[in-house]
């Protein structure tokens, strides 16, 4: 990553917008497509004023037609454009799985390497907004199961910008999962063009007693838990997963070899969530011999996301739950 000197505070949404603006200035082939991304500025105001800067031909409002919209982006990518298609909520990608999974992910392979589909899908995800079961899912694991796709999940404004620019630079289809509760999160963001490499996790906090691998918003809750445990003299290493496909095997295994304990935390439903893959990856590696305790996972409840706010909070991992699980792990109480 080649971040230049100038750094200011931006929100996660502003960082994404800046990445799109920089990409559009650098490359006329980059266009934005999606529902209400123009004058409306996007349901979460991520595209914001880009319509004013780049006009309706490059910031295209699409009809409400996700299968077709995603497919148009795939066809455009196949023939010279670099589209960024915004799903208004990632839940609506359920309508476009055919184009994402059967076409975008497989075209290069099915055509024997003779074609490329450099498309980016933006996926606003997660719960906490009171929008209930059809507007709050975390489906990144589905795409992590599909060869031909790359899947990233930035947790900070800096990574949001760097990963979106990396996704655009990638010759293959990339999905970027953006947690809706992070859009307003502010943080330092380097100016200008830089990319955050896809496939690399990052250690947000070093520690010797326990490794927590967390994704998206859970990174912040894991760091809160780590703070609390530090007071108790427990040093937690917190890894921000960042990339769901490919997974950064080396960073995770290296950490587990040092700490001997692993807790994985994500918002997606626990069963078959990314935590399952990370746990299994460790359990079949040489790091298995370094494990001093079972591998724990915290994920979403085995239920759709409920509307009632208390239930909604109870449906996904919160800081106290992470703290309790981490404590139990280091105290060998599992």
């Amino acid at each position, binding site marked *: 990553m080649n971040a230049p000197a100038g750094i200011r505070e931006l929100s996660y949404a502003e960082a994404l917008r800046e990445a799109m603006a920089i990409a559009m200035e650098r490359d006329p082939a980059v266009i934005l497509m999606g*529902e*209400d991304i*123009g*004058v*409306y*500025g996007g*349901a979460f105001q991520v595209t914001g004023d880009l319509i004013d800067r780049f006009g309706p031909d490059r910031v295209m*409002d699409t*009809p*409400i*037609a*996700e*299968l*077709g919209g995603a497919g148009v982006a795939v066809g455009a990518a196949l023939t010279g454009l670099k589209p960024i298609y915004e799903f208004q909520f990632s*839940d*609506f990608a359920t*309508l476009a799985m055919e184009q994402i999974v059967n076409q975008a992910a497989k075209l290069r392979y099915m055509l024997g390497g003779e074609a490329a589909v450099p498309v980016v899908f933006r996926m606003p995800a997660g719960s906490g*907004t*009171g*929008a*209930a*079961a*059809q*507007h709050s899912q975390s489906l990144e694991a589905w795409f992590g199961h599909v060869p031909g796709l790359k899947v990233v999940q930035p947790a900070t404004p800096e990574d949001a910008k760097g990963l979106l620019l990396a996704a655009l630079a990638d010759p293959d289809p990339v999905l970027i999962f953006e947690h809706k509760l992070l859009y307003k999160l502010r943080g330092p963001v380097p100016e200008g063009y830089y990319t955050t490499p896809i496939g690399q996790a990052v250690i947000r906090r070093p520690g010797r007693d326990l490794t927590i691998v967390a994704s998206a918003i859970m990174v912040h809750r894991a760091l809160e838990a780590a703070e609390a445990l530090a007071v108790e003299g427990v040093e937690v290493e917190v890894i921000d997963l960042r990339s769901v496909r490919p997974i950064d095997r080396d960073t995770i295994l290296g950490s587990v070899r040092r700490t001997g304990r692993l807790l994985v935390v994500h918002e997606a439903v626990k069963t078959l969530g990314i935590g399952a893959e990370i746990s299994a990856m460790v359990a079949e590696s040489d790091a298995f011999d370094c494990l001093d305790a079972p591998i724990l996972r915290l994920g979403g*409840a*085995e*239920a*759709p996301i*409920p*509307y*009632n*706010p*208390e*239930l*909604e*909070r*109870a*449906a996904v991992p919160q800081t106290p739950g992470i703290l309790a699980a981490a404590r139990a792990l280091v105290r060998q109480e599992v």
Partner: protein
Amino acid sequence: MTLAPPALAEDNRPFAIRRYSPARLRAALYQMILIRRFEEGAEDSYTRGLVHGTMHLSIGQEASAVGSCLELTDADKITSTHRGHGHCIAKGADIGRMFAEFFGKQTGYCHGRGGSMHIADVTKGNLGANGIVGGGLPIAVGAALAAKRLGRPDVTLCFFGDGANNEGAFHESLNMAAIWRLPVVFVCENNQYGMSTSTARATASATIADRAAAYAMPGVRVDGNDLSAVAEAVSTAIARARSGEGPSLVENLTYRWRGHSKSDRNRYRTKDEIDGWIARDPIARFRAELIAHGILTGADADDVAAEAEAAVAAGIAFAKASPAPAPTEVTRYVHADAAP
């Protein structure tokens, strides 16, 4: 539903006046006002922080909801949308349980699990609002298929918006309903925008009713702010469905007064446009019609409004006083056999 004495040939009063009894007409006015007050109450509750999330208000579209449901019995089904409060009330929902759902209470229609976008009352034939644009279309066709296969006389009325008409689900659903001649009526509430995108920018055909021809079914556009016009078109379509002749498409041209949802900054409509439509208030219009035709006096109409006000106040009170679900019950209702 009690009917008025058979209309005489030369009777040229509006359809609704001819067809329905004074009591039924009064009830229709009541429902329209109740929808308006209910949504104002919901909006107010939202501002007071009693409601979580967002909501989609149908203020200005009351004639479409009430006019479309006039002919329906509790055995008939409807599928609704994210903008479905009016449909629920028109299909007979209890507003106390609706408010309770907004407030996330155990006494709500979904026991606090669904919220505004999922209110349903299967016992009254309301198969539910839907958070997915176009999501209700194939479900409605399925309900009509079930009625036909099980030999039930009920019809299904499928509400959807102008934005939904560009979803593939619209095409697949209307095609299947037509080839199988199913008892379903597709009611498009064309409020001229899908969120910020006008029908002119999103829909290639001049009207949505025009698309009915692609499915060899009747399609008609009516003034969706004229309850009587809506009722006439929909009752014709329902009669066709009941008699086994198959589906129809009715397009109610209307307008939403409020923003798309709570986060709408309304960058895509002019104040003039909005004011022009507010001047075409469907409630004021129907009220005047009832008075003009001697169905109600102005005083009667004021009583109707007062009753609606009182019902909304009572509904909010009920909802506030209701218990919340136990936070431990996150997985309750996932499966028939799911433990709390």
